[in-house]
């Protein structure tokens, strides 16, 4: 480890130990690209993890990259691109440059998630700085590892409530040889049906989305396979610049719907027919994610009708999914869809065990935790 990384880690450790001893909560933060995400956290002292940065290990033939939490995503993606590899879960950047620690702690994934897997699926290992300042390593740098509980994957998406994730190891993949995007004019119901039908066939799908009467399908893989699938599916070929712009807009929330000041994200089974809600959604992940900009149907009003909130949650739950208030005023029962009471109790006990004085990102994942 370099001296500066050593010093940065020592500093983080000191700050964590002090916070624990004084029982003063801290807010872990990388580049702050996801400050809007999660519950309205309790006021806490900011701990910027960016000084602890750098790629620790990357061997293309091992398909693994290990980096310190403060490393920027752009640095990681550039290193991978040199060897024609990438993070297949397409982490969103929200138009800036997040840290890999933030990417890991939020566990968010882009359009490729439906077919390639989510952030959690690419986690191989993580190092945790716990409340007492101890360094704990879970998982590792190998593809298969079933020794001990899978704490590294538990940390992915934990929003930092269990401790400071200092180092992460992620599985990377070779970039697909060929990529092609097709466009189809069709209503939402038909698009959802088609996405599911195609998903059941041996086709190299890598993304499927729908917005405003147009379905977009991306094919990725061996050149011959992409060509054959394209012939089979038909549709209109999209030039690569337009395709890149479109998929990046979904991945990084640059699409107008995703920039809306009042936005709900519904995670539902991909077969769910169009939902009974007053506005038209943007559909991603082959039907498994439905974005609703202002669920009241009035796209110009930044504040959704309070009465519509229980309705949107009920609609999502009836479909077997959940509704997240992505942006806009926080509903009374929180931004995230409420958990089962027994599951909340497990969260509470895990939090108590990992962070007995509740110093890490209090309230960020679950109100009061």
């Amino acid at each position, binding site marked *: 480890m370099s001296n500066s990384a050593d010093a940065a880690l020592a500093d983080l450790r000191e700050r964590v130990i002090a916070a624990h001893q004084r029982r003063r909560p801290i807010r872990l933060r990388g580049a702050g690209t996801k400050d809007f995400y999660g519950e309205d956290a309790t006021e806490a002292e900011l701990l910027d993890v960016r000084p602890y940065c750098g790629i620790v290990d990357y061997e*293309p033939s091992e398909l693994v990259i290990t980096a310190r939490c403060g490393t920027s995503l752009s640095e990681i993606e550039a290193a991978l691109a040199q060897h024609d590899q990438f993070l297949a879960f397409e982490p969103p950047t929200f138009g800036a440059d997040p840290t890999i620690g933030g990417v890991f702690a939020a566990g968010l994934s882009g359009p490729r998630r439906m077919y390639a897997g989510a952030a959690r699926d690419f986690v191989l290992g993580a190092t945790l700085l716990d409340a007492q300042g101890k360094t704990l390593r879970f998982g590792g740098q190998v593809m298969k590892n079933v020794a*001990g509980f899978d704490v590294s994957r538990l940390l992915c998406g934990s929003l930092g409530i269990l401790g400071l994730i200092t180092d992460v190891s992620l599985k990377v993949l070779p970039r697909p040889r060929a990529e092609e995007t097709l466009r189809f004019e069709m209503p939402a119901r038909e698009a959802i049906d088609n996405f599911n039908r195609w998903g059941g066939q041996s086709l190299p799908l890598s993304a499927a989305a729908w917005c405003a009467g147009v379905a977009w399908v991306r094919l990725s893989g061996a050149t011959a396979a992409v060509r054959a699938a394209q012939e089979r599916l038909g549709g209109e070929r999209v030039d690569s610049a337009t395709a890149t712009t479109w998929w990046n807009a979904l991945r990084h929330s640059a699409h107008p719907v995703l920039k809306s000041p009042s936005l709900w994200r519904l995670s539902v089974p991909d077969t769910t027919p169009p939902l009974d809600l007053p506005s038209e959604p943007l559909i991603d992940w082959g039907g498994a994610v439905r974005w609703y900009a202002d669920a009241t149907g009035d796209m110009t009003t930044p504040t959704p009708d309070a009465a519509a909130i229980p309705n949107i949650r009920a609609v999502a739950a009836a479909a077997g999914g959940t509704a997240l208030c992505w942006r806009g005023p926080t509903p009374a029962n929180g931004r995230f869809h409420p958990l089962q009471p027994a599951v909340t109790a497990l969260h509470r006990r895990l939090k108590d065990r990992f962070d007995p004085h509740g110093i890490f990102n209090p309230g960020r994942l679950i109100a009061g935790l």
Partner: protein
Amino acid sequence: MRISLRSLSISFAHSSKEKAKLLGRGGYRSRYDEGMRQAEVAAALRQVLPTECVLSRDEELRPYECDGLSVMRQMPLLVALPRTEDEVRQVLLTCRRLEVPVVARGAGTGLSGGATPHESGVLLSLARLNQILEINPKARTARLQPGVRNLKVSEAAAPHGLYYAPDPSSQIACSIGGNVAENSGGVHCLKYGLTFHNVLGIRGLTIDGDLIELGGAALDYPGLDLLALVIGSEGLLVVVTEVLVKLIPRPQLARVVMASFGDVCHAGDAVAAIIAAGIIPAGLEMMDRKATVAVEPFVKAGYDLSAEAILLAEADGTPEEVEEQIAEIEGVLKTAGATAMVISNSEAERLRFWSGRKNAFPAAGRVSPDYYCMDGTIPRKNLGPMLKAIEDMEARHALKCMNVFHAGDGNLHPLILFDANSPGEWERADRFGAEILELCVQLGGTITGEHGVGIEKINSMCVQFSDAERDMFFNVKAAFDALGLLNPGKAIPTLARCAEYGKMHVHGGALPHAELPRF
């Protein structure tokens, strides 16, 4: 670990004190106390289950005394065979109230002793919850009870052109619930993932009888990823009562390249070269000459017996995709120094090439009275050095070792050959195995890639994890099961146990009580 029947004599060499230690307990009760306790717990369970669902006579308990780790035998206090989720809940509530340990068991095929009974505990068999609740071809999912056999899922999905990807070698017999407990793998993990990557959700019960649902048919759910935590938790956190799995389209075609190498290190390097070339084969397996020589007489796969190692690299997908990938694989292997290559030209030929790999374990049983199967994983780049190190260990322990690897994942299954009836051989095999696992950790890998820790590798956990890390595992355990009733003594070694194992290390070859088997 898999050891043939002859080696069972070993288990009788266990003193009950040593066995108690292995199972992570202190003392043991008198026969009288045990009888009283058995009657008490049986009576309580028969309040909530039909009489025939509670087994208590010795001859009824005998079939449950071990799982696939047959050297480790222990009669349970009782066996409960619930038929519904609610009956499972009633069993757990009863055990919780009486503070009786509970060991959940699927098909009992596990190789690390995860389902070895607890002497004063209830063995909770989930075998009767064996219904496929739903195959949804449109959603490409299957909703299963935990006792459904792995292969049965793919059979039920086949009419829809779909299958369930994880294919552990025991897939004819092993159950989905057991797969979830162990996070089972198979030969196609590199491309299709482990159980973790193919399970969308579970329903399960905590020891307190709370029914929880984790994950589901949508792709993400709020909160901590408890689903990830429960998968592979070896029955220590939750008893799974329902599993929702992902089904994927069966590839139109699969072909395999069989390549010969004059040196095991060249074969190891060829594996890294394939990955570096941007190819993710559906399967990438390696066998050394000792393995091919052992299997060829039985399976007649046509292996090149003059080669020091052979690689099997499979491509699957559409015919166009397969053709493209096979050509690439051929090119890379040639550059990497393959001395000969054969490509399967028919499904029959493909299966024949695989037959030797799939029969490596039984073949080991034919050429040697007993064998001990290891399961470490290392970074691929270290395959060559690892094989060289194993050669040195063979000389030092005066035992042969056949090597079959899931090379694409760096997951090793060295098969240490020994004769349990020959004095001292098992002890040497055991030490040999522990050395391989320690080297796996040193080379940046892990002591278990897919078989789990159970009882077998509990000492090796002390090598891989620090006191603080193991302490955190116990913290996780306590959050789910404060009294430690679910599968106690498995998967995570106590501080005291590791301290003792550390002491044994100091003595190196001169172990105290060398006559006792250690796992």
